[in-house]
Protein backbone atom coordinates (compact mmCIF):
# COMPACT_ATOMS: atom_id res chain seq x y z
CA UNK A 1 0.00 0.00 0.00
CA UNK A 2 1.25 3.47 -0.81
CA UNK A 3 2.35 5.82 1.95
CA UNK A 4 -0.44 8.19 1.02
CA UNK A 5 -3.09 5.52 1.40
CA UNK A 6 -1.72 4.42 4.77
CA UNK A 7 -1.62 7.97 6.00
CA UNK A 8 -5.20 8.66 4.89
CA UNK A 9 -6.45 5.41 6.36
CA UNK A 10 -4.76 6.07 9.69
CA UNK A 11 -6.50 9.42 10.15
CA UNK A 12 -3.68 10.56 12.44
CA UNK A 13 -3.53 14.04 10.96
CA UNK A 14 -4.85 16.04 8.00
CA UNK A 15 -2.93 15.04 4.88
CA UNK A 16 -1.50 17.55 2.44
CA UNK A 17 -1.22 16.94 -1.28
CA UNK A 18 -0.07 19.50 -3.81
CA UNK A 19 0.62 20.01 -7.47
CA UNK A 20 4.09 19.59 -8.95
CA UNK A 21 5.14 22.56 -11.10
CA UNK A 22 5.16 21.92 -14.83
CA UNK A 23 8.62 20.94 -16.03
CA UNK A 24 9.80 21.62 -19.55
CA UNK A 25 13.55 21.80 -19.72
CA UNK A 26 16.46 21.70 -17.31
CA UNK A 27 16.80 17.95 -17.04
CA UNK A 28 16.35 15.95 -13.88
CA UNK A 29 18.05 18.75 -11.92
CA UNK A 30 14.91 20.83 -12.46
CA UNK A 31 12.78 18.04 -10.98
CA UNK A 32 15.18 17.62 -8.08
CA UNK A 33 14.98 21.32 -7.22
CA UNK A 34 11.19 21.28 -7.24
CA UNK A 35 11.18 18.16 -5.07
CA UNK A 36 13.43 19.88 -2.52
CA UNK A 37 11.08 22.91 -2.43
CA UNK A 38 7.97 20.82 -1.76
CA UNK A 39 9.08 17.83 0.23
CA UNK A 40 9.19 19.29 3.75
CA UNK A 41 5.58 20.48 3.56
CA UNK A 42 3.54 17.91 1.69
CA UNK A 43 2.72 14.21 1.88
CA UNK A 44 2.23 13.52 -1.81
CA UNK A 45 2.31 15.55 -5.00
CA UNK A 46 0.44 15.28 -8.29
CA UNK A 47 2.50 14.72 -11.41
CA UNK A 48 0.11 16.61 -13.66
CA UNK A 49 -0.91 15.50 -17.12
CA UNK A 50 -0.67 18.40 -19.58
CA UNK A 51 -2.48 20.81 -17.20
CA UNK A 52 -4.92 23.22 -18.82
CA UNK A 53 -4.24 21.43 -22.12
CA UNK A 54 -0.65 22.68 -22.42
CA UNK A 55 2.05 20.15 -23.30
CA UNK A 56 4.87 19.66 -20.76
CA UNK A 57 7.24 16.88 -19.72
CA UNK A 58 4.94 13.90 -19.32
CA UNK A 59 3.07 12.87 -16.17
CA UNK A 60 4.76 9.46 -16.10
CA UNK A 61 8.29 10.80 -16.48
CA UNK A 62 7.77 13.33 -13.70
CA UNK A 63 6.07 10.82 -11.39
CA UNK A 64 8.93 8.36 -11.83
CA UNK A 65 11.55 11.04 -11.23
CA UNK A 66 9.71 12.30 -8.13
CA UNK A 67 9.61 8.78 -6.77
CA UNK A 68 13.33 8.40 -7.36
CA UNK A 69 14.01 11.66 -5.55
CA UNK A 70 11.98 10.45 -2.57
CA UNK A 71 8.79 12.48 -2.94
CA UNK A 72 5.57 10.47 -3.06
CA UNK A 73 3.96 10.98 -6.48
CA UNK A 74 0.33 10.90 -7.50
CA UNK A 75 0.20 10.08 -11.21
CA UNK A 76 -2.50 12.27 -12.69
CA UNK A 77 -4.06 10.89 -15.87
CA UNK A 78 -6.53 12.87 -17.95
CA UNK A 79 -8.79 11.35 -20.59
CA UNK A 80 -8.29 14.16 -23.11
CA UNK A 81 -5.05 13.16 -24.83
CA UNK A 82 -4.90 9.40 -24.91
CA UNK A 83 -7.04 6.41 -25.66
CA UNK A 84 -7.67 3.45 -23.37
CA UNK A 85 -4.59 1.57 -24.55
CA UNK A 86 -2.22 4.45 -23.85
CA UNK A 87 -3.74 5.29 -20.47
CA UNK A 88 -3.49 1.72 -19.25
CA UNK A 89 0.10 1.54 -20.54
CA UNK A 90 1.03 4.75 -18.68
CA UNK A 91 -0.36 3.51 -15.38
CA UNK A 92 1.34 0.13 -15.80
CA UNK A 93 4.62 1.73 -16.85
CA UNK A 94 4.71 4.12 -13.92
CA UNK A 95 3.75 1.31 -11.53
CA UNK A 96 6.74 -0.65 -12.79
CA UNK A 97 8.88 2.14 -11.29
CA UNK A 98 7.00 2.14 -8.00
CA UNK A 99 4.32 4.77 -8.65
CA UNK A 100 1.20 3.56 -6.83
CA UNK A 101 -1.10 6.57 -6.48
CA UNK A 102 -3.15 7.51 -9.52
CA UNK A 103 -5.70 10.31 -9.91
CA UNK A 104 -7.97 9.94 -12.91
CA UNK A 105 -9.84 12.87 -14.35
CA UNK A 106 -11.69 13.96 -17.43
CA UNK A 107 -9.40 16.89 -18.12
CA UNK A 108 -9.92 20.36 -19.50
CA UNK A 109 -10.88 20.51 -23.13
CA UNK A 110 -8.20 21.11 -25.77
CA UNK A 111 -9.73 24.54 -26.34
CA UNK A 112 -8.46 25.60 -22.90
CA UNK A 113 -4.87 25.25 -24.06
CA UNK A 114 -2.42 26.70 -26.51
CA UNK A 115 -3.05 24.04 -29.15
CA UNK A 116 -6.81 24.20 -29.60
CA UNK A 117 -6.45 22.59 -33.03
CA UNK A 118 -5.55 19.28 -31.38
CA UNK A 119 -7.83 16.27 -31.68
CA UNK A 120 -9.60 15.60 -28.41
CA UNK A 121 -9.66 11.94 -27.45
CA UNK A 122 -11.93 11.22 -24.45
CA UNK A 123 -12.04 7.55 -25.42
CA UNK A 124 -12.96 6.73 -21.81
CA UNK A 125 -14.48 9.04 -19.22
CA UNK A 126 -12.94 9.47 -15.79
CA UNK A 127 -15.34 7.09 -14.05
CA UNK A 128 -14.72 4.37 -16.62
CA UNK A 129 -10.98 4.93 -16.20
CA UNK A 130 -11.29 4.54 -12.42
CA UNK A 131 -12.87 1.16 -12.95
CA UNK A 132 -10.32 0.16 -15.60
CA UNK A 133 -7.45 1.09 -13.25
CA UNK A 134 -9.10 -1.05 -10.59
CA UNK A 135 -8.98 -3.92 -13.06
CA UNK A 136 -5.24 -3.44 -13.56
CA UNK A 137 -4.70 -3.77 -9.81
CA UNK A 138 -6.91 -6.87 -9.79
CA UNK A 139 -4.77 -8.44 -12.47
CA UNK A 140 -6.27 -7.78 -15.89
CA UNK A 141 -6.46 -5.21 -18.63
CA UNK A 142 -9.81 -3.90 -19.87
CA UNK A 143 -9.76 -6.59 -22.53
CA UNK A 144 -9.62 -9.23 -19.82
CA UNK A 145 -6.03 -10.19 -20.63
CA UNK A 146 -4.34 -11.33 -17.44
CA UNK A 147 -1.55 -9.43 -15.70
CA UNK A 148 0.74 -11.70 -13.74
CA UNK A 149 1.90 -10.04 -10.53
CA UNK A 150 -0.40 -7.02 -10.90
CA UNK A 151 0.65 -3.62 -9.55
CA UNK A 152 -0.48 -2.17 -6.25
CA UNK A 153 -2.54 0.92 -7.02
CA UNK A 154 -4.20 3.54 -4.85
CA UNK A 155 -6.84 5.00 -7.12
CA UNK A 156 -8.46 8.38 -6.86
CA UNK A 157 -10.35 10.95 -8.88
CA UNK A 158 -11.50 14.54 -8.82
CA UNK A 159 -14.92 16.07 -8.28
CA UNK A 160 -16.14 19.64 -8.52
CA UNK A 161 -18.52 20.55 -5.68
CA UNK A 162 -18.83 24.09 -7.04
CA UNK A 163 -20.13 23.62 -10.60
CA UNK A 164 -23.70 22.95 -11.69
CA UNK A 165 -25.67 20.77 -11.35
CA UNK A 166 -24.81 21.34 -7.69
CA UNK A 167 -27.30 18.86 -6.26
CA UNK A 168 -25.97 16.14 -8.53
CA UNK A 169 -22.29 16.44 -7.59
CA UNK A 170 -22.61 14.20 -4.54
CA UNK A 171 -24.19 11.47 -6.66
CA UNK A 172 -21.34 11.76 -9.12
CA UNK A 173 -18.85 11.48 -6.24
CA UNK A 174 -20.73 8.38 -5.11
CA UNK A 175 -20.52 6.95 -8.60
CA UNK A 176 -16.76 7.48 -8.58
CA UNK A 177 -16.44 5.94 -5.13
CA UNK A 178 -18.52 2.95 -6.25
CA UNK A 179 -16.29 2.55 -9.32
CA UNK A 180 -13.29 2.31 -6.99
CA UNK A 181 -12.04 5.83 -6.23
CA UNK A 182 -10.50 5.81 -2.73
CA UNK A 183 -9.66 9.49 -2.66
CA UNK A 184 -11.20 12.56 -4.27
CA UNK A 185 -9.22 15.74 -4.77
CA UNK A 186 -11.93 18.41 -5.03
CA UNK A 187 -11.66 21.18 -7.55
CA UNK A 188 -10.77 24.77 -6.80
CA UNK A 189 -13.66 26.59 -5.17
CA UNK A 190 -14.45 29.77 -3.31
CA UNK A 191 -17.94 28.97 -2.04
CA UNK A 192 -17.67 27.51 1.47
CA UNK A 193 -21.43 26.89 1.54
CA UNK A 194 -21.24 24.68 -1.54
CA UNK A 195 -18.30 22.75 -0.13
CA UNK A 196 -20.18 22.28 3.11
CA UNK A 197 -23.27 20.92 1.34
CA UNK A 198 -21.15 18.62 -0.78
CA UNK A 199 -19.15 17.19 2.11
CA UNK A 200 -22.30 16.73 4.18
CA UNK A 201 -23.90 14.91 1.26
CA UNK A 202 -20.85 12.70 0.91
CA UNK A 203 -21.02 11.81 4.59
CA UNK A 204 -24.74 11.07 4.38
CA UNK A 205 -24.36 8.89 1.28
CA UNK A 206 -21.44 6.98 2.72
CA UNK A 207 -18.88 8.34 0.25
CA UNK A 208 -16.68 9.67 3.06
CA UNK A 209 -16.67 6.20 4.60
CA UNK A 210 -14.82 4.65 1.67
CA UNK A 211 -13.14 7.63 0.08
CA UNK A 212 -10.89 10.36 1.45
CA UNK A 213 -12.04 13.88 0.59
CA UNK A 214 -9.34 16.48 -0.08
CA UNK A 215 -10.71 19.97 -0.84
CA UNK A 216 -8.40 22.18 -2.90
CA UNK A 217 -7.05 25.42 -1.54
CA UNK A 218 -5.35 27.95 -3.81
CA UNK A 219 -2.51 30.32 -2.98
CA UNK A 220 -2.71 33.49 -5.08
CA UNK A 221 -1.19 36.94 -4.76
CA UNK A 222 -3.45 39.37 -6.59
CA UNK A 223 -7.03 40.33 -7.17
CA UNK A 224 -6.34 39.93 -10.87
CA UNK A 225 -5.55 36.24 -10.37
CA UNK A 226 -8.95 35.77 -8.74
CA UNK A 227 -10.75 37.71 -11.50
CA UNK A 228 -8.93 35.66 -14.11
CA UNK A 229 -10.02 32.37 -12.55
CA UNK A 230 -13.57 33.64 -12.18
CA UNK A 231 -13.83 34.95 -15.73
CA UNK A 232 -11.70 32.55 -17.72
CA UNK A 233 -11.61 29.15 -16.07
CA UNK A 234 -14.84 27.22 -16.68
CA UNK A 235 -16.09 25.52 -13.54
CA UNK A 236 -14.60 28.10 -11.17
CA UNK A 237 -16.71 30.92 -9.77
CA UNK A 238 -15.57 33.37 -7.12
CA UNK A 239 -17.98 35.64 -5.23
CA UNK A 240 -17.50 39.29 -6.17
CA UNK A 241 -17.16 40.19 -2.47
CA UNK A 242 -14.11 37.93 -2.20
CA UNK A 243 -12.49 39.48 -5.26
CA UNK A 244 -13.23 43.01 -3.99
CA UNK A 245 -11.87 42.23 -0.56
CA UNK A 246 -8.53 41.17 -2.03
CA UNK A 247 -8.32 43.72 -4.85
CA UNK A 248 -9.29 46.62 -2.60
CA UNK A 249 -6.94 45.81 0.27
CA UNK A 250 -4.43 48.53 -0.63
CA UNK A 251 -0.91 48.34 -2.01
CA UNK A 252 0.68 45.26 -3.51
CA UNK A 253 1.72 43.82 -0.19
CA UNK A 254 -1.63 44.41 1.44
CA UNK A 255 -3.33 42.70 -1.49
CA UNK A 256 -1.04 39.70 -1.25
CA UNK A 257 -1.71 39.52 2.49
CA UNK A 258 -5.49 39.78 2.04
CA UNK A 259 -5.30 37.03 -0.56
CA UNK A 260 -3.38 34.86 1.87
CA UNK A 261 -5.98 35.51 4.56
CA UNK A 262 -8.78 34.40 2.23
CA UNK A 263 -6.86 31.20 1.59
CA UNK A 264 -6.34 30.53 5.30
CA UNK A 265 -10.02 31.11 6.06
CA UNK A 266 -11.17 28.77 3.30
CA UNK A 267 -8.64 26.16 4.44
CA UNK A 268 -9.72 26.37 8.07
CA UNK A 269 -13.32 26.06 7.07
CA UNK A 270 -12.61 23.04 4.85
CA UNK A 271 -10.62 21.32 7.60
CA UNK A 272 -13.43 21.91 10.10
CA UNK A 273 -15.90 19.85 8.05
CA UNK A 274 -16.47 16.32 9.35
CA UNK A 275 -15.55 13.96 6.53
CA UNK A 276 -12.56 15.90 5.24
CA UNK A 277 -9.19 14.07 5.36
CA UNK A 278 -6.85 16.88 4.43
CA UNK A 279 -6.16 19.47 1.78
CA UNK A 280 -4.90 19.64 -1.76
CA UNK A 281 -2.93 22.85 -2.26
CA UNK A 282 -2.43 24.64 -5.56
CA UNK A 283 0.31 27.23 -5.28
CA UNK A 284 0.24 30.06 -7.80
CA UNK A 285 2.39 32.31 -5.57
CA UNK A 286 5.69 30.47 -5.45
CA UNK A 287 6.96 32.79 -2.73
CA UNK A 288 7.25 30.48 0.24
CA UNK A 289 3.60 30.88 1.22
CA UNK A 290 3.09 27.13 1.05
CA UNK A 291 5.44 26.66 4.01
CA UNK A 292 3.68 29.45 5.87
CA UNK A 293 0.26 27.98 5.16
CA UNK A 294 0.99 24.45 6.40
CA UNK A 295 2.62 25.97 9.47
CA UNK A 296 -0.30 28.30 10.22
CA UNK A 297 -2.75 25.44 9.75
CA UNK A 298 -0.51 22.97 11.58
CA UNK A 299 -0.97 20.30 8.91
CA UNK A 300 1.34 18.19 6.79
CA UNK A 301 4.49 16.20 7.56
CA UNK A 302 6.30 19.08 9.25
CA UNK A 303 3.83 18.99 12.13
CA UNK A 304 5.10 16.56 14.71
CA UNK A 305 2.16 17.06 17.00
CA UNK A 306 -0.47 14.42 16.22
CA UNK A 307 -3.99 15.53 15.72
CA UNK A 308 -7.13 13.81 14.64
CA UNK A 309 -8.49 13.70 11.08
CA UNK A 310 -11.41 11.97 9.43
CA UNK A 311 -10.68 8.29 9.04
CA UNK A 312 -12.16 6.57 5.99
CA UNK A 313 -12.10 2.78 5.52
CA UNK A 314 -10.13 2.68 2.32
CA UNK A 315 -10.09 -1.06 1.67
Amino acid at each position, binding site marked *: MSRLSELLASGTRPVVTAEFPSIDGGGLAAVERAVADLKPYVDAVNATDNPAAHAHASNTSIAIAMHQFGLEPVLQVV*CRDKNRLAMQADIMGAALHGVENVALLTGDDVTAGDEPEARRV*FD*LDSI*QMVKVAG*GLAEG*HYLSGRAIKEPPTLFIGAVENPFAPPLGYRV*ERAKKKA*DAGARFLQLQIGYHPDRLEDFVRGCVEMGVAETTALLPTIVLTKTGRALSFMNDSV*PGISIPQATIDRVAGAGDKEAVAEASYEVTVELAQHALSLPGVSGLHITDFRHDGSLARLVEDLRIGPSQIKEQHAHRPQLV
Partner: protein
Amino acid sequence: MKRLIPLFEHAVKKPVWDCRMCGQCVLHSTGMTCPMTCPKTLRNGPCGGVREDGGCEVKPEMTCVWLKAERRSHSPINPGRWEAELNHLRPPVNNQLKDTSSWINLLSGADRRAPAGWTGEIVEDSADLLVGAALVEIDDPSSLPEGFHS
Protein backbone atom coordinates in the same frame (compact mmCIF):
# COMPACT_ATOMS: atom_id res chain seq x y z
CA MET B 1 -31.69 -3.56 -45.51
CA LYS B 2 -28.65 -3.58 -43.23
CA ARG B 3 -27.52 -0.38 -44.85
CA LEU B 4 -30.91 1.25 -44.92
CA ILE B 5 -31.74 0.85 -41.25
CA PRO B 6 -28.89 3.05 -39.96
CA LEU B 7 -29.89 5.73 -42.48
CA PHE B 8 -33.48 5.55 -41.38
CA GLU B 9 -32.51 5.55 -37.68
CA HIS B 10 -30.36 8.62 -38.20
CA ALA B 11 -33.14 10.38 -40.10
CA VAL B 12 -35.46 9.85 -37.13
CA LYS B 13 -33.07 10.49 -34.26
CA LYS B 14 -30.94 13.28 -35.67
CA PRO B 15 -33.62 16.02 -35.67
CA VAL B 16 -34.94 15.14 -32.22
CA TRP B 17 -31.83 14.19 -30.23
CA ASP B 18 -28.98 15.32 -32.51
CA CYS B 19 -28.05 11.63 -32.68
CA ARG B 20 -24.38 10.89 -33.46
CA MET B 21 -24.93 7.24 -34.39
CA CYS B 22 -22.68 5.74 -31.74
CA GLY B 23 -24.61 2.51 -32.28
CA GLN B 24 -25.20 1.89 -28.56
CA CYS B 25 -28.06 4.11 -27.57
CA VAL B 26 -28.39 5.11 -23.91
CA LEU B 27 -31.02 7.83 -24.33
CA HIS B 28 -33.41 5.96 -22.04
CA SER B 29 -30.92 6.15 -19.16
CA THR B 30 -29.80 9.73 -19.71
CA GLY B 31 -33.15 11.48 -19.47
CA MET B 32 -33.49 11.23 -23.28
CA THR B 33 -30.44 13.50 -23.72
CA CYS B 34 -27.73 12.22 -26.05
CA PRO B 35 -24.39 12.14 -24.19
CA MET B 36 -22.54 11.96 -27.50
CA THR B 37 -23.49 15.61 -28.06
CA CYS B 38 -21.25 16.46 -25.09
CA PRO B 39 -18.03 17.69 -26.72
CA LYS B 40 -16.11 15.32 -24.45
CA THR B 41 -18.58 12.49 -25.22
CA LEU B 42 -18.92 11.80 -21.48
CA ARG B 43 -21.38 9.02 -20.75
CA ASN B 44 -21.29 9.04 -16.95
CA GLY B 45 -22.15 12.56 -15.92
CA PRO B 46 -20.94 16.16 -16.25
CA CYS B 47 -17.30 17.22 -16.25
CA GLY B 48 -15.99 19.78 -13.77
CA GLY B 49 -16.03 22.56 -16.33
CA VAL B 50 -19.76 23.36 -16.33
CA ARG B 51 -20.07 27.14 -16.16
CA GLU B 52 -21.85 29.01 -13.41
CA ASP B 53 -24.76 29.75 -15.78
CA GLY B 54 -25.00 26.10 -16.84
CA GLY B 55 -23.15 26.65 -20.11
CA CYS B 56 -20.83 24.00 -21.49
CA GLU B 57 -17.10 24.43 -20.85
CA VAL B 58 -16.32 23.86 -24.52
CA LYS B 59 -19.33 25.54 -26.14
CA PRO B 60 -20.49 28.24 -23.71
CA GLU B 61 -23.59 29.01 -25.79
CA MET B 62 -24.85 25.45 -25.29
CA THR B 63 -26.34 24.30 -21.98
CA CYS B 64 -24.29 21.42 -20.59
CA VAL B 65 -25.77 18.19 -21.90
CA TRP B 66 -25.65 16.65 -18.45
CA LEU B 67 -27.44 19.57 -16.89
CA LYS B 68 -30.31 18.87 -19.28
CA ALA B 69 -30.06 15.14 -18.67
CA GLU B 70 -30.20 15.59 -14.92
CA ARG B 71 -33.16 17.94 -15.16
CA ARG B 72 -35.03 15.72 -17.59
CA SER B 73 -34.37 12.62 -15.54
CA HIS B 74 -36.90 13.98 -13.04
CA SER B 75 -39.48 14.31 -15.80
CA PRO B 76 -43.02 13.21 -14.89
CA ILE B 77 -43.21 11.35 -18.22
CA ASN B 78 -41.29 8.44 -16.79
CA PRO B 79 -41.33 8.81 -13.00
CA GLY B 80 -38.62 7.02 -11.10
CA ARG B 81 -37.13 5.07 -13.94
CA TRP B 82 -35.05 7.76 -15.67
CA GLU B 83 -33.93 9.02 -12.28
CA ALA B 84 -32.79 5.58 -11.24
CA GLU B 85 -31.02 4.87 -14.50
CA LEU B 86 -29.18 8.18 -14.70
CA ASN B 87 -26.63 6.96 -12.19
CA HIS B 88 -25.99 3.62 -13.84
CA LEU B 89 -22.35 3.10 -14.70
CA ARG B 90 -22.22 3.05 -18.48
CA PRO B 91 -19.35 1.01 -19.99
CA PRO B 92 -16.80 2.38 -22.44
CA VAL B 93 -18.09 3.11 -25.92
CA ASN B 94 -17.48 0.38 -28.47
CA ASN B 95 -16.01 2.43 -31.30
CA GLN B 96 -16.56 -0.46 -33.70
CA LEU B 97 -20.30 0.20 -33.55
CA LYS B 98 -19.99 3.78 -34.82
CA ASP B 99 -22.46 4.46 -37.65
CA THR B 100 -24.27 1.17 -37.17
CA SER B 101 -27.89 0.97 -36.09
CA SER B 102 -28.43 0.89 -32.34
CA TRP B 103 -31.81 -0.73 -33.04
CA ILE B 104 -30.14 -3.72 -34.66
CA ASN B 105 -27.45 -3.74 -31.98
CA LEU B 106 -30.16 -3.72 -29.32
CA LEU B 107 -31.81 -6.77 -30.86
CA SER B 108 -28.52 -8.61 -31.32
CA GLY B 109 -27.23 -7.57 -27.90
CA ALA B 110 -24.10 -6.03 -29.45
CA ASP B 111 -24.79 -2.74 -27.68
CA ARG B 112 -24.55 -4.38 -24.27
CA ARG B 113 -21.35 -6.33 -24.89
CA ALA B 114 -18.54 -4.76 -22.86
CA PRO B 115 -14.91 -5.93 -22.93
CA ALA B 116 -14.38 -8.96 -20.66
CA GLY B 117 -12.25 -7.01 -18.20
CA TRP B 118 -15.08 -4.53 -17.60
CA THR B 119 -16.87 -7.17 -15.55
CA GLY B 120 -13.63 -8.50 -14.11
CA GLU B 121 -13.48 -11.55 -16.34
CA ILE B 122 -9.98 -12.78 -17.23
CA VAL B 123 -9.56 -14.22 -20.72
CA GLU B 124 -6.77 -16.14 -22.40
CA ASP B 125 -4.29 -14.01 -24.28
CA SER B 126 -5.34 -14.23 -27.91
CA ALA B 127 -2.04 -12.72 -29.07
CA ASP B 128 -0.16 -15.64 -27.51
CA LEU B 129 -2.49 -18.09 -29.22
CA LEU B 130 -2.02 -16.43 -32.58
CA VAL B 131 1.76 -16.35 -32.39
CA GLY B 132 1.86 -19.93 -31.16
CA ALA B 133 -0.44 -21.11 -33.92
CA ALA B 134 1.48 -19.24 -36.59
CA LEU B 135 4.74 -20.79 -35.54
CA VAL B 136 3.37 -24.28 -35.52
CA GLU B 137 1.04 -24.32 -38.47
CA ILE B 138 2.42 -21.96 -41.06
CA ASP B 139 5.66 -23.20 -42.52
CA ASP B 140 5.56 -21.09 -45.66
CA PRO B 141 6.15 -17.49 -44.48
CA SER B 142 4.86 -16.09 -47.79
CA SER B 143 1.40 -17.34 -46.85
CA LEU B 144 1.28 -15.12 -43.76
CA PRO B 145 -1.28 -12.36 -43.91
CA GLU B 146 -0.01 -9.06 -45.19
CA GLY B 147 1.52 -6.88 -42.53
CA PHE B 148 2.20 -9.81 -40.25
CA HIS B 149 5.95 -9.21 -40.38
CA SER B 150 5.81 -5.51 -39.73
